């Protein structure tokens, strides 16, 4: 186990907790995503786990050592891409090499790795420029590249893809996934939920300092996504009584979600049990001689699950991910 948080918490003042009773584990080669709205406590969690802040309640371990007792030796095994921009007042290339020097990376290794990072993150053309003169996305790329100049076993990425264009984001995520496959453990915070869905083996959803749930993205979607969308289209126009009958069916099978919607001849409904709804609709269509033109079921998204999770009061009991209703 690389990281263990055990009822970990931090309060800036006795009455103002930023993180409360946080418990989760991270294993070797795992990518763990921390999702949450602004101010949910993600950055404070990263600061606690990187030993920048001392826990004010609970505890945890980093590489098996109690967080409060961790020091230079443990921090030498981690990398951190901060949410805020961090840079030195030298060129991009010099920044990379200087950072490697700080970490005790040998000159030749640093030189070779700098070239690799400049190419990988498409920073070559701006190697002689000062980082504060770069665009927001370029600065973010630079920051991730710089952190990868040294060896590590655990990488904390605090919103690393903010400001990156879609192509670059995809490349960065692919690279991180490849590093994880080689054994690098990653803690990844983001607002961009489909990134977490793509990269993370497990996800923790934070809200108001609490970790609401932890699980695989698929489990979280299955457990907490309130409903999936079913689209139904008939071969002929329905009569008014038929439409009303169908509306009643949708409302019943849509479990009162009130999301029955009609777009022209297309009926759209969100349901917690879409498979049953589809079966009912097929039966109804057959019984009423209204042939089905098309019926489609959309997958639930992590965004649905996230919205459901963070919309409920913090003290509402939650099921473990995977044990959905």
């Amino acid at each position, binding site marked *: 186990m690389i990281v263990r948080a055990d009822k970990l918490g931090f309060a800036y003042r006795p009455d103002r907790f930023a993180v409360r009773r946080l418990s989760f584990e991270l294993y070797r080669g795992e990518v763990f995503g921390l999702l949450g709205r602004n101010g949910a406590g993600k950055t404070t969690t990263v*600061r606690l786990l*990187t*030993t*920048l*802040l001392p826990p004010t309640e609970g505890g945890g371990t980093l590489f098996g050592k109690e967080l409060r007792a961790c*020091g*230079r*030796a443990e*921090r*030498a095994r*981690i990398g*951190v891409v*901060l949410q*805020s*921009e*961090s*840079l*030195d*007042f*030298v060129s991009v290339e*010099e*920044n990379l090499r*200087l950072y490697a*020097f*700080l*970490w*005790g990376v*040998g000159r030749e290794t640093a030189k070779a790795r700098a070239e690799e990072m400049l190419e990988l993150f498409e920073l070559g053309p701006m190697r002689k420029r000062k980082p504060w003169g770069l665009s927001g996305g370029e600065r973010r790329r630079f920051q991730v590249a710089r952190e990868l100049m040294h060896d590590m076993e655990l990488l*904390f990425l605090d919103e690393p893809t903010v400001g990156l264009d879609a192509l670059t984001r995809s490349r960065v995520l692919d690279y991180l996934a490849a590093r994880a496959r080689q054994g690098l453990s990653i803690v990844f915070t983001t607002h961009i939920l489909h990134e977490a869905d793509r990269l993370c083996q497990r996800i923790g959803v934070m809200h108001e300092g609490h970790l609401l749930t932890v699980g695989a993205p698929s489990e979280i979607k299955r457990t907490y996504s309130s409903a999936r969308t079913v689209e139904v289209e008939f071969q002929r126009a329905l009569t008014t009584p038929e439409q009303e009958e169908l509306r009643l069916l949708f409302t019943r099978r849509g479990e009162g979600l009130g999301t029955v919607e009609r777009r022209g001849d297309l009926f759209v409904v969100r349901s917690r049990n879409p498979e049953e709804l589809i079966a009912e609709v097929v039966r109804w269509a057959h019984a009423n001689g209204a042939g089905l033109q098309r019926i489609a079921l959309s997958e639930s998204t992590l965004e649905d699950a996230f919205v459901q999770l963070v919309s409920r009061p913090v003290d509402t009991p939650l099921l473990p991910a995977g044990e959905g209703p």
Partner: protein
Amino acid sequence: MTLPPVLRLVVRNFRASIDPITLLVMFGQPAFLIVILGTMFSQLIPSVGASGSYIAYLVPGIIASQMITGAILAGRIFWLDRRWSMVEQIFSGPFRRSEYLAALLLTTLLFALVGVGLMALVALPLAGLPRLSGVELLVILGTIALGATFFGGLLVALGARIRSANLYFTIQSLLQYFIVFLSTVYYPVTAKTPTILKVVVYLNPLTYAANTVRDAFTNSFGPSDLTAGAVLAGLALITFTLAALSFRRLDFGPVQ
């Protein structure tokens, strides 16, 4: 071979945080004062106490004030490191906070010593070469090291508490001017000096440092220099402790 963490941080401070323009201003200003004030006031002031000529009085004062130059540069490095999140980045890396502080103070000392060397070079053609014994040279360097630790610690402790660049640099400038001008760097305290000014000047650590360096230049060490050294050491210890304490609970939130 990998350098120890403190030295890696010192190298980084020199390579990354100081630009040539800043160095030119920081070291150019006192050098300019030696040349201009030394030349112009020497014509007006026939002699000053045991130093003899005004320039002979001024040079040790300016050399002592290099402790402020070093401290200001260290304070600037720390402030910029906070502003650009390098403090947070370094603290989350393979360094102890005490090592970062030690590196800052070592950087202060090195800058102060570079300043001493530069001022001595500038003064050489104007004031000649003082005859210093090894002990006197060591006392000068030790005094400047203690003074630089005092001011460096003070500025780092202030920088750790203040979240606004405007406020930090305003306080730093005010401190610099009050400390330099309310000391014996440019002029001596005489019987005619108003009592209130005398009190303020003798509360200023730079006065003790300037007087000690001056006594070394005139080969006239006395018990007052020992007292001055002890006072400077005590003050350096206090501000160093303050800076260390401020690092223990450093707020990593945004500064502007």
